[in-house]
């Protein structure tokens, strides 16, 4: 390509990018009218950005709700790369923000470091708990992190609800879960799922396989298909993209699937025909509640758990399956939810 051709290509690319930018919706919404001294809340997203259809987007939705309902002044910074975490937290800290929310376990170290540097700012981090990695390990942060709140979730409870529905819907008496790495949040989902199913049908066969990856849909699908061969007619995909492979297997074989984390009917429409529900973690609710608590001064350092009691987790709407799920099953789920709420039912998960 000659120089002039290259210039043309570059000019075209530039023109295209300008158009693209011009057409893109404004990233930052007009801030709501702040009160006299509005609390300033900054959200540092992970590299996924605020439109990732998952955690980051959900977290920003929580901040937006706080802007609307509580009149706080909220902004976000999207991390372009993992090396930006500390810098982005710094941006908010040096601009006089009162509360900084960070999203995801990759930001654990950066958040701890900055929390120590800025003891007067409140920090909240999603999905990362500061505790010793192994029994006996000293926790490097535990003693002096007095300004960090970990927003964690009772995955076992929502897993229990999913299991209740799965066992009720299953005709074969065999259900499966295609799981990602055997780490606490995944284990909580799975244990809850199996115990919830057994509560409905004590004879049910609950298959499960942990796959040591969150990004292996091919393996997930393979495992899902083998479970279907063994008679499973409901597949719970618990492991990011790996779990999605399991859902895909369910869809292709005309079986039922249960999504995870967010309402996957909306985020993974390829399998929506098979999705009877999703086991959701309401990150937006957790974020909003944390901001609310910070605003009235009741936010405490340590772990803040989202569970059925406070609406931080729950099953997604049934969508297309709403008419196909019997009232009996819906009642069983509702009863399980009520039992978990008032404590009469335990998920059987012990850490």
């Amino acid at each position, binding site marked *: *390509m*000659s*120089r002039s051709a*290259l*210039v043309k290509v*570059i*000019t075209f690319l*530039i023109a295209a*990018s*300008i158009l693209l*930018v011009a057409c*893109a919706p*404004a*990233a*930052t919404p*007009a*801030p709501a009218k702040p009160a006299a001294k509005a609390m300033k809340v*900054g959200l540092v997203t992970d*590299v996924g950005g605020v439109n990732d259809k998952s955690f980051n987007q959900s977290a920003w939705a929580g901040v937006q709700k706080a802007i609307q309902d509580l009149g706080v002044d909220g*902004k976000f*910074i999207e991390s*372009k*790369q*993992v*090396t930006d975490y*500390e*810098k*982005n937290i*710094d*941006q*908010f800290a*040096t*601009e006089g923000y009162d509360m900084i929310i960070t999203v995801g*376990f*990759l930001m*654990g170290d950066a958040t701890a*470091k900055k929390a120590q*540097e800025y003891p007067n700012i409140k920090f909240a981090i999603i999905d990362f708990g500061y505790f010793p*990695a192994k029994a006996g390990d000293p926790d490097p942060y535990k003693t002096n992190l007095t300004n960090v709140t970990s927003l964690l979730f009772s995955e076992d409870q929502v897993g229990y609800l999913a299991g209740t529905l799965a066992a009720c819907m299953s005709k074969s008496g065999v259900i499966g879960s295609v799981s*990602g*790495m055997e*780490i606490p949040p995944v284990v909580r989902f799975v244990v809850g799922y199996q115990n919830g199913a057994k509560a409905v049908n004590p004879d049910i066969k609950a298959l499960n396989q942990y796959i*040591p*990856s*969150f*990004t292996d849909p091919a393996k997930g699908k393979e495992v899902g298909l083998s479970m279907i061969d063994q008679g499973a007619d409901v597949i719970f995909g618990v492991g990011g993209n790996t779990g999605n492979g399991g859902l895909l297997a369910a869809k292709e074989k005309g079986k039922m699937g249960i999504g995870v984390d967010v309402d996957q009917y909306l985020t993974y429409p390829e399998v929506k025909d098979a999705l009877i529900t999703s086991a959701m973690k309401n990150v937006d609710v957790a974020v909003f509640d944390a901001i609310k608590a910070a605003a009235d001064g009741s936010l405490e350092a340590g772990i803040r758990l989202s569970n059925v009691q406070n609406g931080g987790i729950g099953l997604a709407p049934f969508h297309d399956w709403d008419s196909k799920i019997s009232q009996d099953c819906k009642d069983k789920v509702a009863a399980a939810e009520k039992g978990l709420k008032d404590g009469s039912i335990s998920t059987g998960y012990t850490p």
Partner: protein
Amino acid sequence: MSNHNDFEKTSPWGLFLQQLIVPALAVVTALVLGAIIMWATGNDPLVAYRGLLDGAFLKKRALSETLVATTPYIFLGLAVAFGFKCGLFNIGAEGQFYIGQLAAVWVGYNVHGLPAILHLTLALGAAIVAGAIWSGIPGYLRAKLGSHEVINTIMMNYIAIYLADYLVGLSGPMRDPASSAPQTPAVDASAQLPRLSELPALMASPVTRFTAALLVAVFAFIVVRWWWQQRGNSLRGWRNPWVVGLISAGGLGLITYVFLSSLNRIGGPFTDRADRLHLGFFLAILVAVLVWWILEKTTLGFEVRTVGASPEAAEYAGISIVRNFVLAMAISGGLAGLAGGVEVLGLERNVKSFFSAGYGFDSIAVALLANNNPLGIIPAGFLFGALRNGADLMELRAGVSKQIILVVQALVLMFIAAPVIIRKLYRIRAIREEGVQLTRGWG
């Protein structure tokens, strides 16, 4: 490529300033146009640019962070420019950057017990070699088989990115089993490229300070003596290159020693534990000068430039095209790999999953902005570093989407690519045509 033949006729500084006019006006014009766009979309450009300025230079640690972002831009800009000089479009800097990071980290956490200077050199060397191999493959394919390097380097990008995902990912062989996050173990302390804030501790012992000063002195001696000889000074009296070299070496060595001894009193980035500016930035400047020297003053550089200007003429003159294609691509990739090594050993000290930064693609723009001049890449990289670093605060303060920075960057490039716009606008006469052939046809 006519400028190099009569390079000696104009003073280098005059030429440098002349070459600077169009890029400088391009930047100013782009910023003005950016302001108009902001104003037209209902934002306050003054608040926005104040945020940009504060975020890039004035706020606490802002300048340090700008230099941190500048560092990979310089290395990668040099990488892309070196390819261009040989008529090759290395669009794979991003992938080579990844591979460089992985190689440096692997050496950093697998090799133990070496003294810091050796371990660090070894890790950076591994990054260079890995990057060179990664780009040498497309270079070789281009030279031997004529398959276009643009396509092959893009493909190598994908391989690098997914290889990194696998190696560092949750079940990958380079993953730190002790961590719940998908990341490699941290490198040994001896493989860390020091941050300025770590220097006072490292330089606590007078022996270390003396060794560092000695290294600076030897380096200064070699450079100054060479430079003095180039100016054609006589060998008599105190103007003798050896004498001048020794005096400069002694002076700089002494200054270095005193400087290293008073780091704690200087404070600033030397004592701020959270300041992330590392020695990589200074290494980048040195490497830029080195690349300029290779291209302008060595046979290798001459051959590379000749092949870039006209492969047919080069072949007729007995210059091997195959050798220069492979060599230019390998050096280009080596520079990109070094960028990765410096980035990871200076900043995070381990590789985390999803660590894409997009530096590799931006750096094509950096090279174009600098017209592939290795020294011009320093200010061009600085501009991109400043824009990248200041954009967040601009967005935060003014509510302007930081994408506007991309518009500004695009406008700058457009004006650089079509300098006639700027020349017409500001009525500057065209200086000598500095045509650099960017790349040749598709095979």
